[in-house]
C-alpha cells in the first residue's frame, strides 16, 4: 500500500468517532486519519471481577475496501483457545508449555472462552444461528477460535456493513498475554475480531501457540464498566470517567489508526506519569505498576524515554498521544512482555538488580513493537520474524547504544552479556530447523519459533551490517517504516526496501538467511610458521632475523556462503586483515616474514552473530590458560562447598 493513499479524506463520520472523543489520540503535531480505517469498533463492556468475565455489546462497522463483493466474514474468538481440545492448548502441550506456562496438566483456572450470544447484521437480520466454527489451518473440529457467517446478500465494494454482536468473555488465569491474577486483569484478545482481507482472500488463522495476531486498522470507542475502586488503563486515550452511583464507574477510551484494543484493571495499581518530547510533540507515558515494584518505576521511565528518543531519531515519529505501560503483579508474569497498540506490558522483580537489564530489555522490546507490529502491521501468524525479528534487531541497537555493546543485557558482579549474545543464545540450538520465511505457526516447536523468529532474525540483520554497513541498514529500516506504516507489508516488501536502500541485490543473502536453513560456520583450520631454512642442518632461529613461512587456512564448515574477514597477527606486532569471499570450502594464505604468526581470528570485530560456533573462529599459537584457570577455580570452589555441605549433613 502506498503512503499517499492513506491520507485520502474519508466521508465525515463514516469511521471517525471523534464526536465521542474529548482528547485527541494523537500527538499534537499529528492529525488523522493515518490508515485506511477498514474497521470501527464500538464496545460497551461490563467487567465482573468475581467471575473474571466481561459481558459486552460490540458494534463493528466494516468497510469493504477489497474491490470485491463480500458475503462471508470470518471472526476471531481468541479466548476459546484456552480449552483442552483447542489447537492452542494442543500445540502448547505438545511443546511442553508456552513461555512460563507449562500446560502439562489441565487446570480449570486455565479455561477461557468467548461466547457470542447474539450476532446481527444490520439490515440483514439475526444471523446467530448461521455462525459456524471453522478450522482453516489444521481442521481441528474442537477448535473454536474462528467462526464465520455468511450474509444473506453481499456487501458491495466501497460499502460498509455493520455487525452488532453480544458476547461474554471469560478470562483464564494469566496465560499467553491475557487473563487475571488475583485482582489484576489484562484483557487482551477479548472481543470478536473480524479477519483481514489480504492479497485477495480472508486471512483469519486459528489461534496457535507459536504465533500472534493480525488485524485491520480502524477506530475503537470502548466503554468499560467496573467497580469504581479499580484503576484502569487501555489502548488509546481515556475520554471520560463517570461514577454510576452503584459502586461502579464507566470509563471510556478512544483510539484511532490502531488494529487492536487491550485494557487492564486492578484496584492496587499505582499510576506514574511522565512525558517524552518527541519530534511530533509530547507523548504521555502512563505507567501502571505496584508499590512493591517502586524501585523499578524510574527505570521504566528512563528506558522508555531513551527508546522513544532513538526510535524517533532513527526510524520515524511515534504519532500517538500516549503510551500505556503495564507492569504485571507478582505471579502475573505471563501477562508481561506483550504489545498492543499504544499499550504494552512489561515485567520486573521486587529485587531487580540494576546491572540486570531484563526490566529495561522487556520494556524496550515491547515499545519497539509500536513500530514493528503496531504501525508496520505485518502478519504475525505467517511472518513472525517481520515484527519480532526486526524488533529484536532494533532492541539490540537501542540497548547497545544505551548500556554498551558488551553489557547491554547484563552487567553484574563482573559478568557481562550483550543483548545480541542473548538473542544468539536463542538461535544457536535451532540454527538449522526452520527458515524465517516458513509460516510461523507451522514452525517445528516453540523453541524453534522463538529461536528463529527472535534470535536468527536479529542475527541475520546484525550480520548483514557487515555487508551493507550499519548506517545503511538503519536507513533501510527508516525507509521501510515511513513507507509501510499503517499498512500490512509482506516480507518481500521488507527485503525489497533493503535492496533498494543498500543499492544492491542481496538475493544471495536472503536466499540463505531468510528463505533457507543453511548453517553458518567458518573456522580457522590452521595457523603456523616454519623457518624457510628448515632444511639446513645447523639452522638456528633468531627473533627478528629468521625468515618464516606462515600458513593460514580458513575453512567453511557450514553450507552458508558469506564473505568473511580474518585478522592475522604476528609476533613483531604486525597485523594483516584478509577478506575472503567464503565461496570455496577453504582458502590458504601464505606469508613470508621475519616474524611468526601469533594469532588468527575470523570476524575480528565480532559482528557476525549468525556464525554458529565462535570457538573455532580463532587460533592462538601460544597456549591460553587464563579462562581455564578461572573457570576451574570456581568449579573447584563449588565442588568443595558441595562437599562441605554434604559433610554437614552427616
Amino acid at each position, binding site marked *: 500500500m502506498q503512503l499517499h493513499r492513506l491520507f485520502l479524506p474519508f466521508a465525515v463520520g463514516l469511521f471517525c468517532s471523534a464526536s465521542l472523543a474529548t482528547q485527541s489520540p494523537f500527538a499534537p503535531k499529528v492529525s488523522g486519519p493515518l490508515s485506511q480505517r477498514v474497521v470501527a469498533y464500538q464496545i460497551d463492556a461490563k467487567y465482573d471481577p468475581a467471575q473474571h468475565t466481561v459481558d459486552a455489546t460490540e458494534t463493528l462497522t466494516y468497510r469493504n475496501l477489497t474491490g470485491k463483493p463480500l458475503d462471508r466474514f470470518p471472526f476471531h474468538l481468541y479466548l476459546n483457545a484456552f480449552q483442552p481440545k483447542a489447537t492452542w492448548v494442543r500445540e502448547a502441550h505438545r511443546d511442553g508449555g508456552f513461555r512460563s506456562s507449562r500446560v502439562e496438566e489441565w487446570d480449570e483456572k486455565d479455561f477461557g472462552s468467548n461466547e457470542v450470544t447474539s450476532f446481527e447484521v444490520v439490515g440483514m437480520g439475526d444471523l446467530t444461528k448461521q455462525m459456524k466454527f471453522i478450522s482453516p489451518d489444521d481442521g481441528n473440529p474442537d477448535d473454536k477460535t474462528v467462526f464465520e457467517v455468511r450474509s444473506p446478500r453481499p456487501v458491495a465494494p466501497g460499502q460498509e456493513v455493520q455487525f452488532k454482536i453480544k458476547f461474554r468473555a471469560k478470562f483464564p488465569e494469566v496465560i499467553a498475554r491475557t487473563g487475571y491474577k488475583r485482582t489484576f486483569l489484562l484483557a487482551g484478545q477479548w472481543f470478536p475480531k473480524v479477519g483481514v482481507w489480504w492479497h485477495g482472500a480472508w486471512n483469519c488463522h486459528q489461534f496457535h501457540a507459536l504465533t500472534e495476531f493480525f488485524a485491520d486498522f480502524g477506530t475503537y470507542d470502548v466503554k468499560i464498566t467496573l467497580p469504581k475502586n479499580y484503576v484502569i488503563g487501555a489502548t488509546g486515550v481515556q475520554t471520560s470517567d463517570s461514577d454510576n452511583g452503584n459502586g461502579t464507574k464507566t470509563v471510556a477510551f478512544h483510539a484511532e489508526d490502531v488494529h487492536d484494543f487491550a485494557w487492564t484493571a486492578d484496584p492496587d495499581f499505582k499510576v506514574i506519569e511522565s512525558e517524552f518530547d518527541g519530534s511530533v510533540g509530547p507523548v504521555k507515558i502512563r505507567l501502571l505498576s505496584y508499590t512493591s515494584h517502586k524501585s523499578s518505576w524510574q527505570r521504566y521511565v528512563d528506558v522508555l524515554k531513551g527508546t522513544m528518543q532513538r526510535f524517533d531519531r532513527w526510524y520515524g515519529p511515534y504519532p500517538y498521544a500516549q503510551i500505556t505501560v503495564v507492569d504485571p503483579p507478582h505471579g502475573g508474569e505471563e501477562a508481561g512482555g506483550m504489545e498492543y497498540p499504544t499499550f504494552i506490558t512489561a515485567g520486573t522483580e521486587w529485587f531487580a538488580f540494576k546491572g540486570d537489564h531484563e526490566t529495561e530489555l522487556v520494556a524496550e522490546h515491547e515499545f519497539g513493537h509500536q513500530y514493528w507490529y503496531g504501525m508496520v502491521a505485518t502478519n504475525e501468524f505467517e511472518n513472525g520474524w517481520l515484527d519480532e525479528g526486526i524488533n529484536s534487531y532494533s532492541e539490540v541497537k537501542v540497548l547497545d547504544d544505551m548500556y554498551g555493546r558488551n553489557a547491554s543485557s547484563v552487567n553484574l558482579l563482573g559478568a557481562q552479556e550483550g543483548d545480541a549474545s542473548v538473542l544468539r543464545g536463542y538461535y544457536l540450538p535451532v540454527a538449522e530447523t526452520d527458515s524465517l520465511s516458513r509460516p510461523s505457526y507451522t514452525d517445528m516447536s516453540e523453541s524453534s519459533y522463538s529461536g528463529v523468529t527472535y534470535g536468527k532474525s536479529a542475527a541475520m540483520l546484525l550480520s548483514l551490517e557487515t555487508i551493507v554497513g550499519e548506517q545503511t541498514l538503519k536507513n533501510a529500516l527508516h525507509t521501510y517504516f515511513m513507507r509501510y506504516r499503517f499498512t500490512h507489508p509482506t516480507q518481500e516488501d521488507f527485503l525489497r526496501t533493503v535492496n533498494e536502500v543498500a543499492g544492491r541485490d542481496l538475493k544471495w543473502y536472503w536466499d540463505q538467511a531468510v528463505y533457507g536453513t543453511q548453517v553458518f560456520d567458518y573456522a580457522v583450520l590452521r595457523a603456523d610458521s616454519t623457518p624457510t631454512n628448515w632444511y639446513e642442518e645447523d639452522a638456528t632461529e633468531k627473533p627478528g632475523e629468521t625468515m618464516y613461512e606462515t600458513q593460514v587456512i580458513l575453512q567453511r564448515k557450514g553450507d552458508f556462503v558469506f564473505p568473511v574477514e580474518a585478522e592475522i597477527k604476528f609476533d613483531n606486532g604486525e597485523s594483516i586483515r584478509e577478506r575472503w569471499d567464503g565461496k570455496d570450502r577453504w582458502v590458504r594464505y601464505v606469508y613470508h616474514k621475519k616474524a611468526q604468526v601469533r*594469532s588468527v581470528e575470523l570476524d575480528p570485530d565480532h559482528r557476525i552473530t549468525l556464525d554458529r560456533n565462535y570457538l573455532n573462529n580463532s587460533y592462538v599459537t601460544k597456549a591460553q590458560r587464563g579462562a581455564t584457570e*578461572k573457570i576451574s577455580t570456581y568449579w573447584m570452589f563449588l565442588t568443595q562447598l558441595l562437599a562441605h555441605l554434604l559433610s554437614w549433613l*552427616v
Partner: protein
Amino acid sequence: MTEETMASTKEGLLAAGASLLWRRRGILWWVFAMNIALGAMGTLPAAMQLNKTLHHTLAGEQLFKGFDLGMFYELLRVPEVNLFRFKTSSYVFAVLFAVFMLFISGGILEVYRQDRRRIDTGDFFAASGAFFWRFVRLLLFSVVPFVFLGSLYQQIDKFSDYVGDKVVTDQISFVIWLAGMIIVVLLALFVRLWFDIAKVRAVVLNKRRMWPNMWHACVITVRQLGTLLWMYLRISLVAWTTLLVAFLIWTKIPPTAIWATFVLLELVMLVQLGARLWQMASATVWYKRQAEAVPADFMDFTTPQPQEMPEPEPQLTLYPETELPPADA
C-alpha cells in the same frame, strides 16, 4: 588435667570451643587439605577438557578479561565441553569427602575430648574406626528428621505459592516463604545439634547402642535448647558473615586476578570448615562441662533400661568412663 579444664570453666562456650579448635588446629589443616585435594580431583576432568578446548582460541579472552555470559553459554553448548557433563565427578568427590568426614568424626571428637597436647595419629584413626559404624547408624537415624525438614520446606513453598495466588499484597507470599526458610534453617540446626550431641555422648561415654543414645541426646538437647542452639547459631552466623564479606571483597578483585580469587575462595572454605569443627569442639566442651557439673546418673538423664546390655569393657584405653586423663599423661 586437660588444657580446657585447666582454663577457667567460666570461659564462654564459644571462646572455649574456639580455643579448643585452635589448640587442635592440626585437625583443621588436615580436613582443609583433604577438602582441597578432593575438590581438585573433582574438578580435574572439567579442567582438562576446558584446557583442551580453550588453550588455542581467543574466545577464552572474553571469559578471562571479564566474564562474558554469552561465551560461557557457547562453551557449555559444545558437547564435549558441557561442564554439566562433569558434575558427576564433582558429586563423587563431594560424597567421598562427606564419607571421610563421617569416618574421622570419632577421631575428631576423641581428640577434642582428650584435648591432649599431641595428637597420636594411630589413636586418632583407631578412634575413627571404632566409632565409624556407630556414626553410620546415627546418620541413618538422622535421615528421618532431615527428610521431614525437606518435606516441610516443600510444604512451606507450596503454601507460600498458594497464598501468593490469593492475597492482594503480592509480597506476602515471599515473606511467608522467607519466614518458613528461617524456621527450616533453625530446625536443621537443631537436628544437627541433636546428632552432634549424640556423637559427643557416644565418644565421651563410649556408648554402643545408638538408638537409646540418640533419644537421650534428644532429651539433653531439648532441655538445653536455648543455650545450645544459640551456640550453634552464633557460629553459623560467623560463617555466613564471612561468606558475605568474602563476596564483597570478591566484587573488588580484578577479573584477571585468578590467584587472588583462588586464595579468597579457599579462605572462605577454610572458615566454613573451621566453623563446623568449632561447632563440634563447642559441643564437646559443653558436654564435658555438663558431665563435670552434674552427677553421673543425671548425665545419663534416664535410668538405664533393664533390657540394655551392660557396656563391654572398652577395648581402647582412650575411653575412660568417668575420669579424664591428665593433660601430661
